[in-house]
């Protein structure tokens, strides 16, 4: 069990369950996006884990986007990432221009059936109203001859507590069936 353990100068040690499952959203039929809403403010950090695939036609990969609190203001979002595509490592970024932040790659319609991208995404201090919100994500996909491994960071330039997180495909229309994302809260 991942617990927080607090001991102070001989005081009693309290063990509490610190990593809790908040919600899981499986996609059983193609859907434009997944949204975790009404996220309680009682945790210190959030983590999203799961498998993702897009229905982008004619391609083996799509880009994913992340939107916080339903905010579609394009100037509020930025992203930087480091990726490896099997032959070279490269860095890139997007600054504004989209109603979400670019946030990782996922297999798309021309990828072999059964291939899904993976992600572990963290939003640290998500409810701290003194800070703009930054996410970090480790993820990628391999397709036995293609695919990308990447480290990703996004900025939402707002100090509001995060109460909803939306994941969507950038170029595709839908997240494909079989996509599943799980939201966890981590207590500080």
């Amino acid at each position, binding site marked *: *069990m*991942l617990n927080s353990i607090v001991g102070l100068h001989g005081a009693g040690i309290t063990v*509490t*369950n610190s*990593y*809790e*499952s*908040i*919600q*899981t959203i499986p996609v059983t039929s193609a859907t434009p996006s997944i949204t975790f809403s009404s996220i309680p403010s009682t945790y210190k950090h959030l983590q999203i*884990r*799961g*498998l993702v695939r897009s229905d982008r036609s004619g391609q083996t990969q799509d880009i994913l986007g992340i939107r916080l609190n339903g905010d579609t203001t394009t100037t509020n979002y930025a992203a930087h990432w*480091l*990726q*490896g*595509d*099997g*032959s*070279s*490592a490269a860095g890139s970024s997007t600054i504004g221009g989209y109603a979400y932040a670019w946030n990782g790659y996922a297999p798309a319609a021309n990828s*072999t059936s*059964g*291939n*899904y*991208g*993976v992600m*572990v995404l963290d939003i640290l201090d998500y409810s701290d109203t003194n800070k703009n919100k930054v996410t970090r994500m*480790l*993820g*990628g*996909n*391999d*397709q*036995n*001859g293609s*695919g*990308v*491994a*990447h*480290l990703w960071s996004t900025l939402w330039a707002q100090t509001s507590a995060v109460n909803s997180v939306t994941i969507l495909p950038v170029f595709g229309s839908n997240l494909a069936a*079989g996509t*599943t994302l*799980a939201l*966890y809260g981590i207590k500080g």
Partner: protein
Amino acid sequence: MPTSTYEKITAYTVPSNTTTVTLSSIPSTYTDLRLVMVPASSSGTNGIRMRVNGDTGSNYSGTYLDGNGSNAASWRDTSATQFQLGYRLGINTTLTQIYTIDFQNYANSTTYKTALVRYNDASAAAGTAVLLWRKTPEAITSLSFNINSFGSSTGDFITGSTFTLYGIKAA
């Protein structure tokens, strides 16, 4: 009472030099698996390999990204008979490396299994990899590790190497 979500399944410390470490009988009751590994080998320069469910078919592939202090680079492995854990990273003879391996939704029978790897060695490289196991979808029930150099098995895991497996359970 909050539901226990992140649990240790097993923790194994190598008691004496051993060629292969296998974590078996992995229960299907979790959503994700996370393995934390601190290994070392009786011989350096070789790498760690991993097999799933004892599968020896050419069902393993991976995309790697790392930095070695001089540059960042990427590499790809295709249709291999086991996973390679790490790119520009051999295994040391001292316990100075840390690996984490995440398998998401490991127990389903509908998707190929994809893993996220982080590997870390302050004297060699820090990197990440995405691994794909393309055997006809089945739940992961065992993970086995050996030290291997381009197809030939060489070296043992030394005493004190540790393998800790956690289960993460979604709502």
